[in-house]
């Protein structure tokens, strides 16, 4: 069933891709092939392979239980927040928070997670910023 849904999604994607390709405005100066031909070839092979996936699906993969799925969802949200707030609050704080969360969710005791998270953040900051001179996001506190 998963493969059937996946294949249907692939077909829709191929359709959308072909539609988006046809929206490309060609310039008056173009080579013999033009900017549309290759994307259209891609879209058609995408559609064909999606059809094949629908017609001959593999065995059902083992999807995680709802709880685990929520776990992954929460991790994604944390990462998105991290990406958004990184320039705002600076590298060290943002990274310590995100690393603490991930460490905790992977099964470390809460207090230990805070220590590990802070350690990870400071370790990366030391190695990459202080030693190697990589420019990391600066927050209002300057680090």
């Amino acid at each position, binding site marked *: 069933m998963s493969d059937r849904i996946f294949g249907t999604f*692939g077909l829709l994607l191929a359709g959308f891709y072909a539609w988006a390709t046809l929206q490309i405005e060609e310039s008056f100066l173009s080579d*013999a092939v033009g900017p549309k031909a290759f*994307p259209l070839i891609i879209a058609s092979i995408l559609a064909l392979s999606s059809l094949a996936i629908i017609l001959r699906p593999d065995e059902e993969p083992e999807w995680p239980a709802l709880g*685990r799925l929520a776990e992954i969802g929460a991790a994604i949200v944390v990462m998105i927040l991290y990406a958004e707030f990184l320039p705002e609050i600076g590298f060290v704080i943002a990274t310590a928070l995100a690393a603490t969360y991930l460490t905790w969710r*992977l*099964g470390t005791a809460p207090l230990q997670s805070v220590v590990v998270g802070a350690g990870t953040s400071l370790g990366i900051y030391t190695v990459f910023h202080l030693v190697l001179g990589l420019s990391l996001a600066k927050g209002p506190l300057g680090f």
Partner: protein
Amino acid sequence: MDTLSSLADGFLIALTWQNLLLALLGCFLGTVMGALPGLGPSNGVAILIPLAFTLGLGATPSLILLTSVYYGAMYGGRISSILLNIPGDEPAMMTCLDGYPMAQNGRAGEALSLSGIASFVGAFLATWGLVLLAPQLVKIALLFGPAEYFALFALAFATLGGVSSSNQAKSAFAAMLGLGLAMIGVDTQTGVPRLTFGEVHLYDGIDFLVAIVGLFALSEVFIFLEHRHGSAEADTRKVVIGRLTPAPGVLKACTPTMLRTSALGFVAGVLPGAGASLGSFISYSMEKRLVDRENTFGTGDPRGVTAPEAGNNAAAGGALVPMLSLGVPGSGTTAVLLAVLLSLNITPGPLLFANNPDVVWGLIAALFIANIMLLAMNIPMVGLFTRVLMVPPRILMPIVAMVSFVGIYGISGSSFDLLVMIGFGVAGWVLRKLDVPLVPIILGTLLGNTMENNLRRAVTISNGDWWTLVDSPLSITLWVIAFVGFILPLFVGRVIRARMHARRDEEGAISD
């Protein structure tokens, strides 16, 4: 003898303090990454590319660093196979079969040093193979026109799933996904924006480094979150290393095995669609047929440890041949190395040997040096690496995630790229659940624009005649191989895959 003098020049380039230090660092990091379950050569190299890039290293030093990581990871994979019965990466899968029983018999140290020597022999011979074969392949590649290149790329995609692929439709799907992503951005030939939907960030196209780090490294974090096997299997078991030096008799018994499997592994590495996993698999099977008279394979036979290790390291070297001389990688990690070259503005292929001989030969010399370093590092320091295995994934995986973010942010400094990377991480997780290979996606994003340019150049040269694509005997041959390579796994793929995985579940790693 041209080759030898070029090689000598290469050594002159590689033998600077900076390069030696980078090689040492790369070997160390690579061994650690290979040893840690969940981090293999491809995601190990993937995390480090943005870093090498942002540190402003030149082309040769970055390549030296990253290929040392690549070779190191191939060495490191064996450590957890032998000690924990968990392959550190997929090519090390076969090493579990005899390595773990040896460790249980109290011969862990012997198994580690033997496999270290086997890795050295395999990699050393394969690097010589690279020296001798690559320039010959370059001569053929110089005959290629745009139409032939287009066919060659098609061949690479058709065979990338490999003979062990179980579902070619999914390989094709993945390849098209990658090519489709590469099309995003301003068209190089006519200057019109394509598939950008007005988003300015997309005008430059999607940075393939973002895609690689997301797909390879971040998806691994999600896999670990899903299973929550964050508490390492390692921390409960007491590992007894035992004596480190193998008895001379054992070494002697293993020598023919090492030589045979090195040759076999090298060939498997050069051929498209085989790669290191298959190299170690066929090496093990061949040796089992050839020398296993008393049925000791699988119960801790030293030859069963040396065969897959020599095989997979030789295949790793062999896989560099098509990557360097044709610009078409045959495995996951070489695809990642191709990304390194491309982001350094170096186009691999026949012209690389003519235009940047310093890069090529410096790299090859560095491989020899890295190899010797790895041998020296891996036998006496093996105790140190086994201690690294005690770091549980619940601490390691967040570090992987954070280093990925640092690397990508270091390149562009934009949150948008981080969001795209998270998107790729999630997509990578879903695709891995659905058994869709990730390597074709990467290769697609890397090669998409070159492939299209070759197509358009070929057709433009022939005034719009598309038949030019199958006009020369060379291109027809390439198309035929591509076709056969795509069709063949439909018949034999399931059988080979079933055999490879008969004794082991797939754990963690993505591909070689």
